[in-house]
């Protein structure tokens, strides 16, 4: 009577997973004043909104670890997010052979080990995909509000630049701003 011998293999691995996402754009600033002055006004406005100077750039960290980096000289904006996670993955396989030792058993073990590794690889990729989705969702959640805020910042910088320009052209008699519509009226005596 032949016997069946059970081979059981278990493998555990630790993976450091990383996911990131980013999007870039450029603020559309009109050249009302020379570029350096426009850059200064933009930097001042951004600092007023919580951006911090880091080298040539201005940085702010949003909810969910999203960071916004703006270069006031070029008006380039980069919004990025990074996520990291360490996961421990386990997989187990079992099979049966007809002999307790020998080449058939070795071959069975080798095949099982390869299957286990593929299994673990699949699980790691799945985890990475979930982490990536989380990173992208976090970034996406911030974009809409950030776009509105940056539009407002650009409008304010434009208004300040117009006031400065107007002051150079003549004497400002009256300035009225409509916060709701964002319109600005400057009456000037030249």
């Amino acid at each position, binding site marked *: 009577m032949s016997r069946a011998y059970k081979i059981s293999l278990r493998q555990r691995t630790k993976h450091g997973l990383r996911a990131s996402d*980013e*999007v870039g754009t450029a603020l559309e600033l009109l050249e009302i004043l020379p570029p350096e002055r426009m850059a200064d006004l933009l930097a001042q406005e951004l600092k007023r909104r919580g951006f911090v100077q880091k080298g040539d750039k201005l940085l702010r960290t949003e909810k969910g670890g999203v960071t916004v980096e703006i270069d006031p000289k070029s008006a380039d*904006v980069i919004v990025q997010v990074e996520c990291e996670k360490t996961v421990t993955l386990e997989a187990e396989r079992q099979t049966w052979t007809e002999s307790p030792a020998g080449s058939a058993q070795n071959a069975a073990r080798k095949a099982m080990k390869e299957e286990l590794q593929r299994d673990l690889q699949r699980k790691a990729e799945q985890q990475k995909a979930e982490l990536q989705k989380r990173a992208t969702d976090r970034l996406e959640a911030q*974009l809409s509000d950030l776009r509105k805020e940056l539009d407002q910042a650009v409008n304010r910088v434009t208004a300040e630049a117009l006031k400065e320009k107007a002051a150079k052209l003549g004497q400002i008699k009256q300035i009225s701003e409509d916060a709701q519509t964002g319109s600005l009226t400057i009456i000037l005596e030249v």
Partner: protein
Amino acid sequence: MKAVSLFEYNLLRVLRGVVTQASPSQILPMLAKPGQRPLCLSADAVSLVQDILAKGMVRWLARHGWANDRYLRDGVAVAGRLWERTPPELLGLKFSRWTLEFLLQLMSNTLGSKKPQAVELELGDRLVFLHAFQALRGDERAERLQNHWPAISSDGLCRLFFVEELIDAKTLTRIDWSPWLTEQGAAILESMQSALADRWEQLEIRKQTFRDVVKVRQVGASQTRVLGEFLNAIDAVHRRDLARCLLDAGRRVMRDQPAARRWIGNLDIKRERIADRVLIYRDALAFVHALERLRTWNEEASQVGYFDDGYAASQLWKADWERFDGEATTNHAAEILRKARPM
């Protein structure tokens, strides 16, 4: 009376079908059973080939070049039909031995056994290749043609007509625009303006049905490259009037004020990173992006004064701009691109 062999008879029928743009159902059956290539063609067969090319190509050019229009000649706008703007003796097409060689290889299923160098090809040869690819488009033989006859992928006019089909593989094929920027080549390009606009409009309509992100990216990359190089090439020889096809196609595509979702609405990109979505949108909207360059050209044309060089060319450009609603077209294109940005 002329006598030809069976192989020559089939070759002549295929050539006639290719040149007269017969339906593929008339041409493909003759290619289905390739024959043994003869050592040479008979004098009668060669004479008939010449006759088909002479009549067929002239008829094709006349059909496309009959419209009364204005194009630049030495920086000045000249009006008339194709053969009125350019003297007929300068429009005569030359064909090298490579037309016959191409047909022999096609009929004997030995494409690529000998390949021409670009300098050996005449404009007539290039037009035959274009017609052949057009006739086989959609069939597996077109792919064989693309893979084994590099003269097609490297030809500028073929790349303009077959943006979707002639996708670059991993290595980029150098595109040769120079034959179409000679006096004769540019005259042929003038007569192709409406046909090119038709082709690009149809492609933008077809892109609305694309669901495969990989295909969208490939076609978009091809469009970006081909249209970009084409505009660079005609700009370098001061022939911006040859971009009329793009103005025309742009007007047709933007006529009903489409939204960006027309190009990206069918794509499943929820699982893509935002960084990758930006690239996918860029490729999907490659045609719309190309229209931005035309706005820049219009701004430049508006600044050319009466006594400046290029005044006549700038006036022709401005007339085309108005004729094809350039302002409305490019405004709407800019709006689409603005709304497609993730932020």
